[in-house]
Every structure is written in C-alpha cells, then in structure tokens.
C-alpha cells in the first residue's frame, strides 16, 4: 500500500490528512441524511405514508438514546470482560459495520435483479458478520 520510492512517508501523509473527528462528523450528517431520505413506508392501520418530520425526529431521538445506552453498555463490557475479548468484539464490530454497509450498497446497485433487503435481513447480515469478524480475529490474531 505504500507504493514505490515515496514509501511509507507518502502513505503516512495521506493518512494524516484524514481527520477522524471531521470524518465522523460527516458520517453523522450522512446518517441523518439517509434517515431523512429513507422510505417512510406506510402506516398499517391507516394505509397512508407516515408524516416525515415527526417520524424523522422520532428516529433521530431513538438512535441518539440507543447509541448513548450502548455506550454505557460497552463501557460496562470493557470493565467486566477480558481486554482481549473486548478487543475481539470491537474489531469484529468494525467488520460487521463495513460488511453490512457494503452488502446494502451492492444490493442497492442490483436493485433490478434482487428483491429489496428487509430490516431483519440487514440485522442478520450485521450479526452474522460480527460473529465472523470475531472468529477471523480470534484465529488470525488481533495483530494480523
């Protein structure tokens, strides 16, 4: 990945250009944008599309509080679990997030050929790839 005589210097400079704070702030905006643009679906009882604004506020609120709750849960996990297992789980979770995002993206590109993915199927992809990620790191090691 370092490429040619510029070696690790160039790669390191490129990596330094990516500021994680800015990247994650952009990802937050992107996430909110996706929530806003997502298919509002229909209310089963009324058969009409759910109003966008209250639905969006509710979604953002739920995501915010669940993320906060998960943060406390993860902190508790970190204290109670072996550091080794916590790192395996955390690294596995990164694999899961990336895998699920790309699965969703590829499915979106093959929209005409494949039926749309349901929420449950995406959750299945997330949990399955988390487990796979855990075992990849378990067998290959966290330094691999």
């Amino acid at each position, binding site marked *: 990945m370092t490429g040619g005589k510029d070696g690790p210097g160039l790669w390191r400079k490129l990596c330094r250009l990516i500021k994680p704070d800015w990247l994650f702030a952009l990802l937050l905006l992107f996430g909110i944008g996706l929530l806003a643009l997502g298919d509002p679906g229909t209310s089963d009882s009324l058969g009409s599309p759910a109003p966008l604004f209250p639905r969006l506020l509710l979604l953002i609120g739920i995501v915010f509080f669940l993320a906060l709750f998960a943060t406390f849960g993860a902190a508790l996990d970190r204290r109670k679990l*072996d*550091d*080794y*297992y916590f*790192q395996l789980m955390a690294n596995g979770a990164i694999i899961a997030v990336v895998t699920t995002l790309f699965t969703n993206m590829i499915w979106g590109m093959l929209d005409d050929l494949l039926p749309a993915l349901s929420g449950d199927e995406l959750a299945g992809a997330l949990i399955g790839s988390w487990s796979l990620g855990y075992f990849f790191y378990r067998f*290959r*090691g*966290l*330094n*691999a």
Partner: protein
Amino acid sequence: MKNRLKVLRAERNWSQADLADQLKVSRQSVNAIETGKYDPSLPLAFKIADLFEMTIEQIFLPG
C-alpha cells in the same frame, strides 16, 4: 511486538492457566499474548511486569 512471557512462565513452572489466574484474565488471553496474536493493554502489561518483578521493557520487546 515480541515478548518473553512463555520463557518467564516456563522458568517458574507455571501453566498458562496458573498465570491467567494470577493476572485475573482468561487462559486464552495468556495464550494470545504468548503467540503474538494480541498485545496486552497497558494496565495488563503493568500487571504482568509486577507479577514477574520486572519492567515492561524487560518482558515486551519492540518489533
């Protein structure tokens, strides 16, 4: 990162389970450190150094 954990443990005739008990971690953690699959956190590295009455640098080697 390389380490001398396996040698130090063998010198004391400790099994991986014995060492894991003293460090209050799982045997799998000790095995992962010894085989270079995992670099311990700083608190665990200090715990290991304390247990062997050595400095961290005497146990963990760069590279």
